[in-house]
């Protein structure tokens, strides 16, 4: 039940964040302007939005993968192992992603 709710609420958050992400990063559509990204990432508000986006996407991806696997009877027997693996992977990816966003700087 809790996993299902995490999945659902992160899905609603993603609808919001992904729309922003698509518009801001990919519009105008013909090229990705690196300087523009850097300019935007200077703003702490954008860093916060990106960190929240990262959190939502990781929750959605890992609960989704967990549910895909535990629907199969064989994997359902080791669901504690899978849940542990998902938490470890999630924490690591969250750390790595947050560090990337916070330290986002031009490759000089």
């Amino acid at each position, binding site marked *: 039940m809790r996993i299902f709710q995490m999945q659902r609420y992160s899905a609603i958050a993603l609808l919001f964040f992904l729309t922003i992400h698509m518009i801001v990063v990919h519009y105008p*559509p*013909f090229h990705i302007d690196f300087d523009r990204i850097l300019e935007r990432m200077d703003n702490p508000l954008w860093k916060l939005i990106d960190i929240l986006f990262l959190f939502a996407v990781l929750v959605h991806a890992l609960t989704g*993968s967990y549910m895909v696997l535990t629907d199969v009877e064989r994997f359902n027997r080791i669901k504690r192992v899978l849940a542990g693996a998902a938490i470890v992977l999630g924490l690591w*990816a969250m750390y790595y992603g947050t560090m990337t966003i916070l330290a*986002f*700087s031009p490759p000089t």
Partner: protein
Amino acid sequence: MYRSTGFISFFLRRLTGVALVIYLFMHMWVIGSVNQGPGVFDSRLNMVQTPFFKLAEVALLAAVVYHAFDGIRLLIIHYTGITDNRRSMFYAVFAIAALLTVAGGVPILLFMFE
């Protein structure tokens, strides 16, 4: 195999979901290298600027759009309890996803040949 429109929809949802999880970690791997110096970043970025990855980008767009609108369909069913129009809702999701993929995919492919 018990075939039905619902099964196709469910199968695509899972398929695109798994594909997007794989993409997510690849995306983090590429963008995350920005702090390891310009050499690493440029080499990884050039790796994904090939025509093959441009086509994969269209597939990615299709996956995102389909997964998102299928999710919206599920949210509508969950919060309103509509089950009578299930078939038209399946087809609506397929149609919207196809339309948006074409609308977004053509610019990506045009940019590739510039």
